């Protein structure tokens, strides 16, 4: 306190030299938590100081430097030079496996599209969290299809071109059927005799429907 008082008293007689004023503005802009207006800066400086001029000098001094003196609203602040923004970011890449719920939901959508949420739940036998759907939407692997023309007009989900690209498919119809999966040894559980036949038929029907709609979608 007394320091400032002294400073002010002294400076009643003479403002500090411009180089000194520039130093002051530099320190103020560095240490304050918010951008400072010309007036705010001047109020901190010894009497008779010219913050505007000091700011101009300082601004010039920092031109092309790693940080710049910039206008923020009606205040001034020191900020990282725009081209060095990348230094302030650290990117961590993480490869994560898709959760079982997500991959199953995705598989159902791929095989049965367009498919409503309650149909997905029907097939999975458990409810599907909206988090799972949101994630697949965010990944841009699924998107909304046409509304189903049934009571409540539920939304349907379909797979996207991104999905096809990611999984290296020309179209969703290229996905192998259950019988092919079994032949390829991808089905570890052997269903009871007789049961699977019916199933396959069901599925093929479903696929057919899907395929038709799909042609609509991608054409």
């Amino acid at each position: 306190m007394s320091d400032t008082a002294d400073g002010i008293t002294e400076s009643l007689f003479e403002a500090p030299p411009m180089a000194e004023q520039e130093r002051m503005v530099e320190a103020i802009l560095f240490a304050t938590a918010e951008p400072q207006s010309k007036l705010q800066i001047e109020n901190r400086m010894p009497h008779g100081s010219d913050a505007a001029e000091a700011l101009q000098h300082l601004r010039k001094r920092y031109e092309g430097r790693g940080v710049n003196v910039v206008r923020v609203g009606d205040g001034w602040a020191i900020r990282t030079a725009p081209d060095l923004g990348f230094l302030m970011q650290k990117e961590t890449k993480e490869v994560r496996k898709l959760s079982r719920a997500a991959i199953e939901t995705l598989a159902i959508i791929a095989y049965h599209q367009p498919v409503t949420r309650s149909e997905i739940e029907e097939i999975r036998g458990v409810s599907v969290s909206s988090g799972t759907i949101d994630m697949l939407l965010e990944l841009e692997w699924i998107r909304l299809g046409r509304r189903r023309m049934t009571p409540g007009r539920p939304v349907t989900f379909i797979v996207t071109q991104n999905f096809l690209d990611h999984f290296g498919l020309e179209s969703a119809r290229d996905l192998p059927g259950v019988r092919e999966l079994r032949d390829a040894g991808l089905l570890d559980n052997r269903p009871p005799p007789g049961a699977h036949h019916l199933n396959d038929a069901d599925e093929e029907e479903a696929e057919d429907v899907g395929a038709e709609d799909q042609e609509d979608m991608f054409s």
Partner: protein
Amino acid sequence: MSEDVADDFLAEDQTDGFDSTAERIRAEALVVDVEGYEGPLDLLLTLARTQKVDLRKISVLALAEQYLKFVEKAKRLRIELAADYLVMAAWLAFLKSRLLLPPDPSDEGPSGAELAAHLAFQLERLGAMRRSAARLMARDQLGRDFFVRGIPEDVSIKRRVNYKATILDLMQAYARLRTKDSFEPLHMRERDAVFTMEQALERMKALLGHAIEWGDLTQFLPEGWLKDPAQRRSATASTFAASLELVKAGRLEIRQYDTFAPIQVRSKG
């Protein structure tokens, strides 16, 4: 007390400490502080200063006498001295006798001169640390004389998660589902007969306000779910479960007078 540790740095009033740390310091200070001295060494250092000589040329003998006098005076004034002061007094009395009496050749251990030299060293060292502490505190300090960046731009850590899924994962997932299907087929129609717990809870919550009197649980069953036995079963089960949930939440009371007697509920509070 003429100390060159600037008194500015002393907490004049330690009662403004709010935490247990300050509390503890205060409690200990009561024992240690004898008339403002922090222990016998501090007292000795102050006494030494009255000799107005370089600490290295101090007369330890004179100092010992001064200290013993101080202790005696304190005793006369019935000031209760902490044990350290008395221990130091005893030791100084011993030192004094060693310094005054001719050395006994049969006596092992350090000579009076050695002991005196060490005491002088201790005093000099303490004095030096006092001065250093004052010089340290007189330095420019962060947050008082110089400052850190006011608007730090923190490094933003962007975590990019790449989800890994192969066509194989996809096919296996589907295969798993279809295989499960073949074991326990589920059909839309069967699901029609399920009145879920969530639905029941929703319904019960809506009806809660009306259940002022004890009423049969069955009257809470949803309309249109009573004819088909499967539907009725499901609705009854979920409504009962929902009731228990509400009882747990303290919003409902439930009772049954006898085995298989009707279950009755009423809202609570």
